[in-house]
Every structure is written in C-alpha cells, then in structure tokens.
C-alpha cells in the first residue's frame, strides 16, 4: 500500500514550512508513531535545529562533486529503515549529478511506494505551471521546478501562510537568513509586492486544489465533465463582435463558465485599418472581461471550431446572426446548421441583435 503524502506549501522561504513539518513529526512521534527525518534543510536556523532534536535522522548519502562533497537523502537507507513516517524537506530540490533520481520528488515517490508516509515541503514558485507567472511577477526565473501532478497526486496539500509584513519582520530579525544577507533579500525577492503576489498564487493554488478534491470526491470524471460549462464565442474583427462578446460573457457569468473568444483568420488574410482597430478593441475587451482570446488560422471555420471546442472542453458555442445571404445559404449551406451537425453534444446559441426586435412587430 502506497504511503500517505502530505505537502506543506508556502509562498517563500521563511514562512515556517520546515518548522511546521518538524512540529507535525514531533507530534506523531509523541503519539507513538515511528518517525524519521529523511532529509532536513536546517538553513542554519537555530529554532528549526532545536525542534529537530530528538527525532531520528537517517544518515545522508555523501556524493563527491568536484571539490565539493554534496549530501543527499539516502533513499535506500530510508526504505530499509522502514519507518511509519518520513519527513523530507524541499521536494523540488535537484539531486547531485550521478544520483539515482534527478529530483527529490522522485526519491519521495520511491519512499511512498515502499508504504512509508511522507510529509514534505515546497514553495509555490517551484510549481512548473507557475514558472512564467513567477518570473513575470518577481523578475526571477526559478530553475528548480516540479510538475503540477505532484500536488494533484498528494493526499493532502496544506498551506503554510504568513503575511508579507510578518515574513519581512522575520527576515529583519535574522530568523530566515544570516543578517548580512537580509538587506539584499528585502530589496530583491522579498519585496512586499513580490511576497503579496506569491502569497496570492499560493492561496489560489490551494483553493483550486481543495475545489478539485471536492469535485473528485463527489463526482466521477464523466459527470464532472457534464457540469463544467465552458463558453466559446466566435468573433470577427467588426463592431458587432463587441456586443457578441459582451453577451457571451453575461451568459458565461450566469453559467459560472470560463469564456473563450475565437477568431478564425483566413490564411494570408490582410486586415483593413478598421478591422485592425476592431480586433485590438476585442482583445482589450477580452482582458477586461477575463476572457481568453484565441486566434486560429484556417480556411475551414467549422472544422476549426470543432477542434478548438474539443481542446478547450467547450459546452456552449455563441455565434452572431449570420450575415450570409439566402442565396449563399441555399447554395453553400448555413453556418449554424453546419455547427449543429459538426458539434454534437454542444449547445449552439445564435445571438440576435436586440435592436432588431421592433421590426418583428406587426
């Protein structure tokens, strides 16, 4: 039986993940469980070192690397020791060259497969899918990353939270880094705006994880697919698409759905000045509405819509009232009919121009 995996997630170094991991380890130890420290990064923090006292530490593996002697977790030793619970710090860590596994999360995987429970720690900036966002927010590209599936596969993900002000206070008090590094840290990565942004990312990540787990428990994959709505609106670079995108957004809001706006550009299509302005305005509106603007190049509108719908998990397609003439409709077929035919299981909604309603009056 695979061990139970609990990950303590933080926004940055110093929020107290390692401390919390040791606290939980000590508590388990006091409750009579067999606990070992598989790997601990003491970071020269006296409080952390004190908390680790009394817990059994599995000796590390020493790997020569040039003039350095690197120390890594001895996975085999941990598995041989066969405790009930192993504490393993910093799951995103990259092992020394020559180690059996490149990354520590792979080591942890082996320990879990041996039926040992694991508590581990990681900072949100190491999450692969957030790498670009973190680089944009902080100006720092994080090299040690781990795949998102690690969080998905963990049995529990717990946020270790601290306000940016409190973390800066800990930093100034020398509780995170040695005093000579504090000033540089405060003016670089640990700026209040960076920490706020990272905190938001961490909070959101855990919130999404909670939502995901709630749905997984309640629903199977098929029924989840059935209730998760996603709206796709087909736009063209012309003024009426503004209205179409706004109407689709309102419906998406009511459905609690994500909104994608798709423009299918004909290969080699040159835009007039008016069309270019309309397209830019549509993109700006998509940003304001929080919609995803997609642009695809294709000769076949219906086929492209089908492909995009499949990729994005679309459940509703919104189109404007087609401009095609009756003659064209008779000769070449109607766009709406083609969409209905090619998109089985997807609702098609033709958005009318409400201003035309008066013309229906007798």
């Amino acid at each position, binding site marked *: 039986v695979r061990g139970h995996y609990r990950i303590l997630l933080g926004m940055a170094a110093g929020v107290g993940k390692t401390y919390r991991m040791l606290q939980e380890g000590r508590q388990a130890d006091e409750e009579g469980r067999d606990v070992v420290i598989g790997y601990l990064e003491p970071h020269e923090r006296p409080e952390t070192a004190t908390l680790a006292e009394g817990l059994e530490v599995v000796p590390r593996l020493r790997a020569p690397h040039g003039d350095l002697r690197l120390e890594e977790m001895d996975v085999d030793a941990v598995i041989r020791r066969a405790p009930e619970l192993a504490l393993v710090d910093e799951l995103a860590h990259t092992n020394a060259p020559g180690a059996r596994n490149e990354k520590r999360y792979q080591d942890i995987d082996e320990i879990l497969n041996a039926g040992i429970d694991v508590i581990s720690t990681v900072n949100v900036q190491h999450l692969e899918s957030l790498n670009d966002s973190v680089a944009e927010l902080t100006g720092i590209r994080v090299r040690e990353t781990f795949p998102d599936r690690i969080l998905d596969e963990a049995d529990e993900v717990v946020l270790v939270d601290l306000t940016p002000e409190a973390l800066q206070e800990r930093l100034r008090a020398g509780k995170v880094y040695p005093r000579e590094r504090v000033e540089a840290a405060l003016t670089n990565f640990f700026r209040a705006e960076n920490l706020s942004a990272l905190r938001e990312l961490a909070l959101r990540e855990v919130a999404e994880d909670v939502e995901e787990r709630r749905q997984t428990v309640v629903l199977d994959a098929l029924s989840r697919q059935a209730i998760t709505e996603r709206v796709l609106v087909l736009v063209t670079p012309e*003024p*009426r698409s503004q*209205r179409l995108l706004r109407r689709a957004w309102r419906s998406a809001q009511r459905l609690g759905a994500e909104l994608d706006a798709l423009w299918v550009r004909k290969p080699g299509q040159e835009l007039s000045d008016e069309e270019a*302005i309309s397209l830019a305005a549509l993109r700006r509106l998509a940003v*304001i509405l929080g919609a995803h603007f997609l642009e695809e190049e294709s000769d076949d509108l219906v086929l492209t819509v089908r492909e995009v719908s499949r990729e994005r998990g679309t459940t509703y397609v919104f189109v404007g009232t087609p401009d095609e003439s009756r003659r064209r409709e008779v000769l070449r077929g109607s766009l709406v009919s083609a969409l209905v035919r090619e998109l089985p299981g997807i609702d098609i909604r033709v958005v009318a121009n409400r201003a035309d309603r008066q013309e229906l009056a007798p």
Partner: protein
Amino acid sequence: VNAIEVILIVVIFALILVLVWPRLRRPRRPVAPPDARRILLPFVGNLDPTVLAAGIRIARAENAVLVPAYLVIVPLRFPEESPLKAEVEVAMPMLEAVEHAVLRAGVPVDARIEKGRSPTHALQRLWAVEHFDRVVAPAPTDGGGFSPKDLTWILANAPGETLILRPRPEAEAERVRLAG
C-alpha cells in the same frame, strides 16, 4: 412543352421571386462606409438621455459611426490589467441599452468599454489606439458626466473637435441656486 408554356413558367417563377424575395431579406443593419467619421461619446457611471440623443443626432448628420465608451475606473488596489467583473456587470446593461438606442435610430455604432485609473486615464488609453474625429463629452449632472477638471483636460488633450454638452442647463442652474 411548347415555347408559350416555357415563357409562362418563367413568368410565374419571376412573379414568385418578386413577391417572396423581400420577405426573405434579412433586416439590414446600419453600416458605415469605410472612411466614416468616428464620434466618441465617453461616459462614466450614467449617460443622460439628452446627451445620448444629441450624440445620435450629430452622428446621423455627419454620417458617422457613434462610439459610446463606458469608462471603467480600476481601483488602485487592483493591477491595471485585472479583469473587472463587478464593474463590468454594471457597465454591460447600460452599454447594451445605449447601443440599442443608437441602432434603432439607424446610426452605425461601435461601442467600447475602456478602463483606467481615472476617467482621463481611460480616455488617454483609448485615444492612444483609436482615432476619433470628434468627442462629445457630457458636463456634470446629478447622475454622471465629467467633472470640470476632467472636461478641462479633455478640451486640452482630445485628438479631435470637442463638444461639451450640458444636458439640462436649467436644472443645473436651479441646483446651484438652491445650494446657495
């Protein structure tokens, strides 16, 4: 089938086509010529119907496209590019109503929602990417309009002719009089 019968069939078809064709035509939307002038009608919060009517009249007289633009103010606590669900929910029905009124009047319309830290910032962003031949700006009223400071800025910075409309000068004068 002789020649007379063929002619008869053709005539019948032609008659059917003439009678039925207008019913099959889709309602035509007002469409602006490619080089049409563009008239910007920006507003924050509310748009006085008198100002809208004036904007429609001006656009119709000039065969122009009317661009009603709802300016959304992004509070400083949010990043400038963040989606603004709550604000847009207010803007949406308002802009839709304005758009319908313009279309019903037979005037081409190209509505916008633009955002910025202030009304003038939103306008600046809009002017940076789009050309307008004329700006129709509502003066302050109870329900909306630009502040005198913003109007001064618009007059100094607008990229085209600027028209400042006082929707109900008599009501404003009464308000000032009552305020003492």
